[in-house]
């Protein structure tokens, strides 16, 4: 307790104008309410098309090798680990908000996908996974033949 109070006192960083942003978060709808609260990590977007899906996940500070993607039926799992940064000697924290440790998130996709056709790319801290619908589940057009 005492140490926390002391810390506050000499904190060389004072945050400015944070409140308006918090208000912005609170008042701009449901998705933000989720974001401000206990949000699952990583935050994801799913874009859906007729025969493919694109899933984007914000996972800053990783390398492509640290991310593990598995696809099974209509379930996509993104797994990884963000190690805690090692401090130098005499280095101490004033603020520690960034998440660390292992994470895993499984998404139920709008349709089953062909696991063998999955592509993934990692750039600027954003993971993009492209998934395809299997051939057999694509709608097939059947032409009606005229009975002779």
């Amino acid at each position, binding site marked *: 307790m005492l140490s926390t109070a002391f810390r506050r006192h000499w904190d060389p960083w004072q945050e400015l104008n*944070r409140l308006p942003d918090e208000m912005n978060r609170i008042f701009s709808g449901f998705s933000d309410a989720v974001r401000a609260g206990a949000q699952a990590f990583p935050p994801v*977007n799913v874009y859906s098309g007729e025969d493919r899906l694109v899933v984007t996940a914000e996972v800053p500070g990783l390398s492509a090798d640290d991310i593990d993607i598995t696809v099974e039926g209509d379930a996509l799992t993104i797994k990884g680990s963000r190690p805690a940064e090692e401090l130098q000697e*005499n280095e101490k924290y004033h603020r520690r908000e960034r998440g660390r440790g292992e994470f895993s998130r499984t998404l139920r996709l709008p349709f089953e996908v062909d696991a063998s056709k999955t592509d993934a790319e990692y750039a600027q801290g954003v993971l993009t996974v492209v998934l395809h619908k299997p051939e057999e589940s694509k709608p097939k057009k059947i032409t009606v033949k005229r009975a002779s």
Partner: protein
Amino acid sequence: MTQAQNCLTKECSSTEKSREKVLNPWVDITETDDALILTADMPGVAEEDIDITFHDHVLTIEASKTESEHEGLKPYYVEHAAGRYLRRFKVTEEVQRDGIEATLKDGVLRLTLPKAQPVVAQKIKVLTA
């Protein structure tokens, strides 16, 4: 009135800008013997999109974040969106402004603010009259 008509006025364009979603990047701040180090998670931004200013002891980090377009696809589920990252701090420690360094890697911004060298106390000799 349609959106397009609305936006013919100057005021509207400014409203449009302020309506841009403000995002608070999570930050870690550490201090070493000779520097203050700030690390911020800013996925989805490029170097040229980041604006860092240090003025009157106030450090401002701003960056516009875009979302990639996916042709022919519709958003099905959305948790992250385009917007403007913004955090502002008052730094009470004396900092060498010219020595501030910033790097961006894999969506993580790392700022190093070297501390100013302490002024060496000067000894003043008192002369006897």
